[in-house]
């Protein structure tokens, strides 16, 4: 990657000499190491790919190009492509230009995950999970190292390294009533994962419970939401309404609600990408802006929205450092880096033990069809488990929930002290009261 960094300045200067008023370069070197046992078959992978996106402005016209050829010649071809696109495009009166920051920052880490230790961890987990009545679909490991470089014609030069590795497993249990819904779990960490015992313990527990399949019936009960289920409703129903683009376009249902107490007073939501020990540590966003912790909801009051440079400029405000990019398709947006709900004091076991009748929701099927504007959703809680007298007693079939994200966040009662790191999140389990479960069987 070093050779790329050395030519960025030259590419920017050449762009300016060819008529580009602004040049912005965003590139990534992505290394992945994976090891997977899929239906008993082993595959393993070690790969490194690299690519860079170049964006140019010519007045209010702009163009973008991506190349996998990051040699000087390759970048110059991409530059020339971006300039010709900008020239062919019509003016965009609201184009605020490329991010105009000029910070210099370098955090290069030489990280390497060991494929052989990973393979041992996966094989141990696979062998332990394999039992007569189970179909272990996959057990997999993946370690990724992502080196990002950002440069622009204002002098910014940022190089960061983000990394982490994770272990996942997915299985179903054959019962006299047929196959159970898929049971899964995962762990992620920055440290090389060699110990899968916690994952094994949890999967063994859930698989044992899935041996008993219980048809759902209509009921209104307290529910425990796994961090993954929480993240899916936040992603599809809550975050779209606090992003700068929705606020600028006035499509956010929260437009007039900032500063108001609109959720449960027990609920505090924040985004904190600054913790170096977590996999979601992101020191700079994709505009080249230093990130910081942002409180989004505090004790039920909606406080902050999140912004990238583009939408913040159009709104005449400061970015909050929440730009994201996928340079291959040229996607640019606003998103959290590491959303969290303030942890509680009691464990998951403590919360379950106090429920006389309820449902433990591992994930939500169909959450992606949540209406991003109204936050309304109609989903299957699948897999979900039935709680009776303080214990999980079996796996529920056909449990559906029709509600809204705002209703769920209003009924939020308590978070656990346990938490899980995941994609763009570090979340606890949550006790959500009075959720209506409708049977689909």
């Amino acid at each position, binding site marked *: 990657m070093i050779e790329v960094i050395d030519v960025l300045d030259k590419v920017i200067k050449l762009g300016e000499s060819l008529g580009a008023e602004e040049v912005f370069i965003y590139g990534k070197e992505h290394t992945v*190491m994976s090891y997977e046992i*899929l*239906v008993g*078959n*082993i*595959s*393993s*992978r*070690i*790969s*490194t*790919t*690299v*690519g860079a996106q170049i964006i140019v402005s010519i007045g209010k016209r702009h163009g*973008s*190009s*991506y*190349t996998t*050829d990051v040699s000087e010649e390759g970048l110059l*071809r991409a530059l020339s*492509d971006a300039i010709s*696109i900008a020239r*062919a*495009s*019509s003016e*965009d009166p*609201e*184009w605020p230009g490329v991010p105009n920051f000029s910070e210099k920052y370098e955090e290069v880490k030489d990280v390497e995950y060991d*494929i052989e230790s*990973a*393979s041992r961890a996966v*094989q141990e987990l696979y062998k332990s999970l394999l039992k007569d009545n189970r*179909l272990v679909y996959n057990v997999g490991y993946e370690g990724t190292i992502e080196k990002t470089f950002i440069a622009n014609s204002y002098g910014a030069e940022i190089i960061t390294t983000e990394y982490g590795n994770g272990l996942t497993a997915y299985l*179903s249990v054959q019962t006299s009533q*047929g*196959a159970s*819904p*898929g049971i899964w779990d995962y762990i992620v960490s920055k440290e090389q994962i060699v110990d899968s015992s916690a994952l094994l313990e949890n999967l063994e527990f859930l698989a044992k419970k899935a041996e008993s399949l219980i048809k759902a019936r209509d009921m209104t009960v307290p529910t425990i939401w796994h961090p993954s289920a929480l993240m899916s409703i936040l992603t599809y129903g809550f975050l779209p309404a606090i992003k700068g683009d929705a606020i600028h*376009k006035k*499509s956010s249902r929260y437009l007039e609600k900032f500063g108001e107490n609109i959720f449960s007073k027990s609920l505090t939501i924040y985004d904190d990408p600054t913790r170096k020990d977590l996999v979601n540590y992101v020191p700079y966003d994709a505009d080249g802006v230093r990130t910081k912790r942002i409180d989004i909801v505090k004790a039920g009051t909606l406080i902050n929205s999140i912004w990238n440079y583009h939408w913040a400029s159009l709104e005449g405000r400061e970015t909050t450092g929440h730009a994201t990019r996928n340079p*291959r*398709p*040229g996607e*640019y947006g606003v998103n959290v880096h590491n959303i969290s709900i303030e942890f509680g004091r009691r464990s998951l076991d403590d919360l379950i033990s106090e429920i006389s009748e309820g449902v433990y929701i591992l994930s939500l*099927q*169909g959450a*992606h*069809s949540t*209406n*991003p*504007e*109204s936050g*309304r959703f*109609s*989903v299957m809680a699948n897999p979900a488990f039935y709680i009776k007298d303080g214990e999980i007693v079996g796996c529920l*079939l056909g449990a*559906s929930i*029709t509600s809204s994200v705002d209703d769920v966040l209003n009924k939020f009662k308590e978070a656990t002290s346990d938490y899980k790191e995941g994609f763009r999140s570090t979340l606890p389990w949550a006790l959500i009261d009075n959720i209506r479960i*409708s049977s*689909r069987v």
Partner: protein
Amino acid sequence: MFDSLERVLKHGEKLGLDYIEVRGEEFTMTNIELVDEHISYHRRSERGFFVRVLYKGSWGQSCTTTEKKLLEALEQAYKAAKASPGTVSLKEIKPIKDNVRKGLKIGNISPEEKIELLRDIRTSILDKDKKGLVKSTKVRYRDKEGRKYIMTSEGTEISHDTDYVWRYVWVSGKLGEKSQGVRDERGDSWRGFKVLEVEYGPEKVAEILIRRLYGQLEGKAVRPGTYDIVVAPEVVGVIAHEALGHLVEADLTMSGALANKLGEKIAPDHINIVDDGRLENGFGTEIYDDEGVPTRRVEIVKNGVLTEVLTNREYAQKFNLKLTGNARAEDYMYPPIIRMRNTFFLPGDYSRDELFEGIRDGIYVVSFIGGQADLSSSFHVGVQEAYYIKNGEIMGPAYIGAITGVALEWLWKIDALANDLDFETGRCGKGQEALVSSGGPHIRVRGIKLG
């Protein structure tokens, strides 16, 4: 390109590998997005390689975007395969040498023409919005022009064009306090730009989306209850794909609700489902898969019996199944895995109108927005267009949010299939994207819980 791939094979011979497969790809791709009035135009030029080796029963894989690191990629794949011995072996094939051309001539379409198409779609939508309910539009366009190459140590040597065009339109609107969004998606990999320009052109997509949006905003919510429903081809297709098609991908079949059910009756006699790799103009149609196996029509369910499942070479060998040509890789960054192509229910004998006859209080489900299923065949399909049926007549729009259920139970509730047939085109995600078609005739399903 073949010269580079051959260099890898020659180097691999020295390592004592059991099998070497090298895929190379080069393409340019255009992504344009028109969000309300604002256009962003992005072009990609990519060249990359995927190396896959089999050593002592384990796959080792590596990919690189740097041609001079191709031999290093092979060494990495070898190192990965050596991490532990396994049991993988491959179904034998007769190696093929071929060169498949599509001739879509995407390079002949100017940037201005593409931008004009997007602007025309937006203008048509706003023109048809007589009630002024549209709040925002997003039109996305993508095209790809390129070639992929495969060469293996067994002698396979095939190159294909990878050209296609695709567009996606999203319209959101508001009526009082109710907000709603609707979508339309269309892609084509055999006829090209004219499909988006003419066959599914701006006027047509605008008409469809305004109808859907008004229906969703003005439709009355369905009372919770049990209904007889008629399902239109687009939604039949997503059920065929999500709830049944994924279950017959051999890497999933043996872990899911269809485990050990090959040859068993899983549906009434009148149910026939196929995945056709050579469907004329199918979005998922290709002549060879990404392991160099010829594609074909796979009879998944024949007269209600689970007859065949979709395979790649690895799973065909593991479970002693026939090859179907369903190994697909999104591009050079991914390994080929088992994916559907064009999946659909075959038509029945009823006319479409006959399906509605005798339904006193039912729902006509026309279009979907997102589908998902799991290994138990439990599925969730978001609905973006539906109507009430009263005494056999299609009435006003109905708002139902989603249809959910267990597909293997649903199959037994399908009591009639119409003699029509239609398809939708889309993108399937299973860790990587695949272009697919899915469809079927109108079907009638009895006793479905909604609301």
